[in-house]
């Protein structure tokens, strides 16, 4: 191996791990023996180290990770919706078959009425890059707006949640029933498409079946969204935020 060949090999040298290659090892040995080649290689490596550092200093946007994870929530919701559409289509076929006398399906609670389905739908709303119907940090304006739109407005906020920064509200529908969505901020970096990262959903308890036991908040971890659900008075509450159990329990 001559110096020119060694140079061509050392051009691609990155770390000591590369030295395991016999050709690289030979080139390195030559660089140790040849002063001119050795000096070139030392300078070249120093320049490469500076360049590598500059590449690795590319600043990564602070909210990018949360953005990607929140998009995942949306995608999961979409998948489940697609699955529900397929299930609904299948159910329709079965019902049609029943109507024409092939089957006799007993009547029961529709799965779309269940607490699990309601909760899933609300989490989907939260992660879907929703737009608030009213953007305000005034709690009374939120109640007035919800009342004007026939959505639950006489809800009771737990003490710690009442201290959180409110950002507004939206009115959603669940099987023909109005749902109040009240939005807050936790103070963490916010994904670009979300106006809040802490959401409270309030609905008439009679519109949802299989409710959590009264007085005992039910914790659920859905993907990276933590939720707590509880029944109080005539209402069902679901509180959700991206994070873990401790991130949500501190608001009760």
């Amino acid at each position: 191996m001559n110096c020119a060949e060694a140079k061509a090999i050392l051009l691609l040298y990155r770390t000591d791990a590369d030295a395991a290659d016999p050709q690289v090892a030979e080139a390195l040995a030559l660089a140790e023996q040849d002063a001119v080649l050795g000096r070139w290689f030392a300078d070249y490596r120093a320049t490469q180290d500076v360049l590598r550092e500059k590449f690795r200093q590319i600043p990564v946007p602070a909210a990018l990770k949360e953005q990607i994870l929140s998009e995942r929530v949306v995608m999961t919701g979409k998948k489940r919706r697609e699955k529900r559409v397929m299930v609904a289509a299948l159910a329709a076929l079965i019902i049609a078959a029943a109507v024409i006398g092939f089957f006799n399906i007993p009547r029961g609670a529709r799965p779309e009425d269940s607490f699990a389905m309601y909760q899933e739908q609300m989490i989907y709303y939260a992660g879907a890059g929703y737009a608030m119907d009213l953007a305000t940090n005034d709690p009374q304006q939120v109640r007035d707006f919800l009342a004007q739109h026939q959505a639950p407005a006489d809800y009771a906020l737990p003490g710690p949640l009442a201290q959180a920064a409110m950002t507004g509200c939206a009115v959603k529908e669940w099987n023909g029933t109005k749902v109040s969505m009240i939005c807050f901020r936790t103070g963490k970096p916010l994904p670009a498409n979300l106006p809040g990262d802490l959401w409270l959903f309030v609905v008439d308890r009679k519109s949802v079946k299989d409710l959590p036991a009264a007085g005992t908040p039910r914790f659920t971890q859905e993907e990276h969204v933590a939720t707590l659900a509880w029944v109080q008075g005539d209402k069902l509450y679901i509180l959700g935020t991206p994070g873990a159990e401790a991130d949500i329990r501190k608001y009760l």
Partner: protein
Amino acid sequence: MAEGVDFEDLVARYYAPLYQFAFSLTRDESSACDLTQQTFCVWAAKGHQLRDATKVKTWLFTTLHREFLGSRRRQTRFPHLELEGVADELPVISPASVNQLDAGELFDALSQLDEIYQTPVSLFYLQDCSYNEIADILNVPLGTVKSRLARGLARLHQLLADKSKP
């Protein structure tokens, strides 16, 4: 199968190097964010098809690169270049003068490289990928990766040397 790979762990581990790779290709924060996010969207939809969980990193970089090429809507066949003589073309450039360049000047120089050199050079400096992984990502033989790298590095050094001249 890669079905057991936890999505959140995957994002935590790779979103930063993927973003840096995307930024080195696009030089635009918004486009780099989009490419990074799109890569994880593709993973969410198709990642379960990957049989070898050890290939996740390569798969993600490959996907990001494909998305980038797709966004450029440009496909070209490129020749293999020999390494011989490349080292002789390498200009002398001191670490101090490179250090004085700001990131914008560096990525401006990078963007002036032909696309066939730009991608392997980015992956080379980001150092998250071995030569074999770069070959997998670009779907070219190892020798081609090395020749493109050698040419790309020589050209980049030339551009940086020009920029650092008073």
